[in-house]
């Protein structure tokens, strides 16, 4: 039996050496995180309904604005122009709050963490789905916040915030989310 094992051992050593021997170049880093978050944003658009009058004059577009320093790189190119119930996704980048116009989805970059209250106050009547990935965003009144759980991306939703903005979030999305409440003002009931 020992002889049999030794033979197997040699075979395995051989493929290891041959297998590793070639192709020795460094692996490429990737912004996996934001590629995946971009795909989530596209999915959110499918599971949120906006009031009729919030979808702009032509009803043909869903505008996704990224406010602040763009963490996505080119990742959002993958969803630009994609259709959500016949409406095409349009991407807009805004460096500052002043540049911000009406959008159905607003992703607030971490660079704007200090201005969150101001931003949320500004868009409060726009029927905007606010999304970010900073700690406590949803508790501060944002609608959806990404978080990393065991290296995977999960998200929390503040249903009260969604209701205040006039958005309807599908139960499927709610079920997958961690539900959070407003922190300071407290739950409504």
């Amino acid at each position, binding site marked *: 039996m020992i002889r049999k094992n030794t033979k197997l051992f040699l075979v395995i050593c051989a493929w290891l050496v041959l297998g590793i021997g070639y192709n020795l170049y460094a692996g490429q880093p990737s912004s996996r995180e934001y590629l995946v978050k971009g*795909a989530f944003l596209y999915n959110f658009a499918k599971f949120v309904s906006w009031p009729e009058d919030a979808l702009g004059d032509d009803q043909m577009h869903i505008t996704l604005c990224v406010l602040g320093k763009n963490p996505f790189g080119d990742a959002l190119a*993958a969803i630009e122009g994609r259709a959500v119930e016949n409406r095409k996704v349009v991407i807009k980048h805004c460096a500052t709050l002043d540049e911000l116009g009406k959008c159905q989805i607003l992703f607030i970059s971490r660079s704007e963490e200090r201005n969150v209250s101001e931003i949320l106050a500004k868009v409060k009547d726009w029927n905007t789905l606010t999304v970010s990935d900073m700690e406590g965003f949803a508790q501060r009144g944002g609608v959806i916040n990404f978080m990393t759980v065991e290296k*995977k991306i999960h998200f929390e939703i503040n249903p009260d915030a969604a209701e205040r903005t006039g958005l309807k979030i599908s139960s499927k999305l709610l079920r997958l989310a961690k539900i959070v409440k407003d922190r300071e003002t407290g739950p409504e009931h």
Partner: protein
Amino acid sequence: MIDRSHIPVGRKSPSIGRCFWGAALGTLLLSVAAGVCWAGARDTEPQLPADLTELSLEDLMNIEITSVAKKTQKLSKAAAAIFVITQEDIRRSGVTSIPEALRMVPGLEVARIDANKWAITSRGFNGRFANKLLVLIDGRSVYTPLFSGVYWDVKDTLLEDIDRIEVIRGPGAALWGANAVNGVINIITKTAKDTPGGLVTAGAGTEERGFGSVRYGGNLGQDTYYRVYAKYFDRDNAVFASGEDAADGWDVLRAGFRMDLEGSGPDSLTLQGDLYDGETGETILTKSLNPNAPPTLDEENDISGANLLGRWKRTVSNTSEIALQVYYDRTERNSVILDQIHDTLDIDFQHLLALGGRHEIVWGVGYRFISDDITNTFYGSWDPDSRDDDLFSGFVQDDITLVKDRVYLTLGSKFEHNDYTGFEIQPNARLMWTPQEGHSIWAAISRAVRTPSRTEEGGRLNNTVLPPGSLLPLFPGYGVVSLFGDGNYESEELLAYELGYRVQPMDQFSVDIAAFFNNYSNLRTLEPGNPFLEVSPSPAHLVFPFTADNKMDGETYGVEVAAGWRPLDWWDLKATYTYLQIQLDLGRDSGDPLSLSAEGESPHHQVSLRSSMDMTRDLALDWWVRYVDDLPSQDVGSYFMLDVRLGWKLHGNVELSVVGQNLLDDRHPEFEPELIDTIATQIERSVYGKVTWHF
């Protein structure tokens, strides 16, 4: 302990037979070594799908976002038969223990022996000491060193803290080492970062006499998280076949902590530990040479233990990560059959590295030291009664991308040296083909061994005592049927061939099918020897020895199906089906009268159907129907069973639930144990209520 002066009606008389010697100890070997919990099966898929927008939300939530080297892997891409029980599955099923949760898994057999004992195996050969299944809690092996099985009564934690239970059917030996023959169960708890705030649960019911738990978690500084918990339960006796109350109630108090340092830097640290202490009741058939001894004995076993585990991981670069894990475990059990103390120290090092775009290599080395101390009795004795063993192991595995996003090959092997059989090598090869997104086909060939247990090498169990007169005219006094270990006992060997197919034609529907053919050799037999006279202990008695040997071969094959369907947004259905056949062949020179009975100790068919409905945002209704085929070698008939749970969220932070379990029958038997004559009891219909408060 209280003596009991009658044998419950309906129990078939014990014989050497059921003794199947589940056996024996051992174990040290176990090894497992490298199974650090952060790697499920490491068949990894390093690239993201080309078009992420095609993925469902669930799939997106399943993607690892850390660097190539750091990432573990998406289980759905693994070239192995994998099933994952999530925290949500555990919560909504209403189960109150880890063994009961395992009933969800296709390919596993979960049968209750009495209120606190289970027989659990993967793909056949079930028993209280089923020895072909490896169980890990957060990377710590809980395979029992004395009998090569698992003491399920102490395998527990706060169920709310479990992140998931990954179950791999089929050999996991190439990574986890000897004894991961038919399957590996990985119980993985949440990091402390994911359990902030407080949790209080409390409840009671007909079988759950009372239970409660408290957990609190928070921050210590910016990147350090902690939680502490304590839980207690007190469970009722089951009933004998006669309907009479048994003496197998149990209670366990357990407390533990976990700390995680997860900064933005390259290092992460985990430190965790548990302590437990409890009592389990059972009724055993007395083995005694005293004519006045009662035929059965009710006893309370003291069970206690502690463990401490530390794990350090460092991301060396974007393509390289190292991990070092050290743990210590003490298990202590005191019963009329034996007192035992086991100390285990385990050290594992592991290195994960990506080489080029094609290779992802993981290799590691491990060392384990096991020390035991046994108090021998007439029921069981071990020579020596205290022993230290070393286990050295190493493994290497390469995940090779043959065609990007389409074809992956995994080659790997474990190399081990144990004190019983010396050097063991356990290689496997796995191929994964994804012809298009949503379809994948995999195949695997593996070799695994089950190394001898301590009992198989040097133990003795007195299985049956024949009263004076029963051996006349051969001998006037007592006869004792004894099972002996043997120093020449070898490892059992398996060559496994597996094939699988996964398909997800749409978001709402998925099917996972796995088929296998297992070819075993050197399986354990018990060979009868010549009777001999033994004078100690007195009175003199005639011993009928059965000695452990390896004279059986066997084949098993089967199919396991897991399907998920979400017909409506608020309704989830999960079904599994398991088919299994076992065919065993005794060697020509074997005189073993009993080992073939394993053919009839596993059900041919098992079905499970679970439904989860969100009736409203606050009201959830779940039901779970199971069918288990009969066990022809035992007097256990087929049965259907139903559990129902109704959960109601009050205020969002408080949840009330009512759970009915085993509702279709007043009581039913599930399994008769081997080796030690604990009297099997029957599982009763039960109801409990529970309050869960998060703050």
